[in-house]
């Protein structure tokens, strides 16, 4: 299973996916979101939707000094929070900025490719590709 952006042109920037992602933990707000919707240089120019591409040889895991990010079979990474020291190297290593940061816990927010956000996009911007 792999999360993908099907058509960013359809995005209206409602942030519904971002709230859905954070709500997976059961709480409201945005602190835990692993998906980002930002304007492509001002809202009149549309939106960029950034999700983890679940790389097969993930740069974020490769730079982790404590082994807190474990590559998964078939791509993507899993976070072991107890090992994470919050150094932020993973965040800097991701060239598409898909490693988000939970500022309250000072640890990365890592997409688990669950597809929960897909169900909350009113405009079918996102999709979950099954292997």
């Amino acid at each position, binding site marked *: 299973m792999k999360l993908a952006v099907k058509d960013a042109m359809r995005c209206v920037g409602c942030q519904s996916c971002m709230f859905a992602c954070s709500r997976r933990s059961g709480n*409201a*707000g945005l602190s835990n979101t692993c998906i980002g919707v930002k304007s492509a240089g001002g809202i*009149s120019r549309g939106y960029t939707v950034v999700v983890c591409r679940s790389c097969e040889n993930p740069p974020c895991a490769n730079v982790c000094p404590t082994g807190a990010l474990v590559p998964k079979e078939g791509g993507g990474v899993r976070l072991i929070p107890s090992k994470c020291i919050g150094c932020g190297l993973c965040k800097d290593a991701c060239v598409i900025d898909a490693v988000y940061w939970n500022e309250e816990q000072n640890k990365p927010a890592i997409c688990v490719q669950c597809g929960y956000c897909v169900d909350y996009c009113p405009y079918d911007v996102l999709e979950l590709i099954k292997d």
Partner: protein
Amino acid sequence: MIENDTLSKVLYIDLTKKRYSVKDRKDLFEKYLGGTGVATALLHEECPEGIDAFDSKAPIIFAVGPLTGVLPLASKTCAMFKSPHTGDLGESHAGGRSAIAIRMAGYGAIVIKGKSELPIYLSISNGKVLFKNATTLWGMKDGSIAARVMRQNEKGEGLRAIFRIGQAGENMSTFANVTTETYRHFGRLGLGAVFGSKMLKGMVISGKRMIEVTNKKEYRALYDQIYKYCHFHQL
């Protein structure tokens, strides 16, 4: 109220002294309903009777409600001020990301008073308010350029709301509006002119916090129920 919620925090900004403070106003948020209720109460407290709309002591109040950031569609910010157009109550609402950004920055309301001697814009994030020099942005013909400069200079990409006025506001045209996120407006009763009278070109605000929910299962079920109803039914 939700426990540990930052909704009751009110940010007071003084443009004359370039100072700010945060007060916990649980008393207001528990007593009055939503952003409109709290903004009305704050206006009562902060706005002296019979004051001119352009007086430095006249306040600008923004407030959001408890549902913002928690349930779908609760996305409006309520602005209260003395209207320079009618000399009466000024109430104007805008959507976009404004309400979410204020809530996620950790505030339920913002009170802006005083008057700056030079054009400034405010940058609000991580519990701090920065007063930025907006002299170079003042008088630009195209308001979107000022917004672009604020966008490039400030952080909070994808989370922030950018409030700004254009030349009408700077010149204190009594029905000037305040634009947020290019397409959303505090359009009614001249909030832009009040911004202009305070030499306040704009405001960038962002944040990304958690609102802790006690009954997580029930919360998600309620969210889904409202979301599905709004999405699949014609209102």
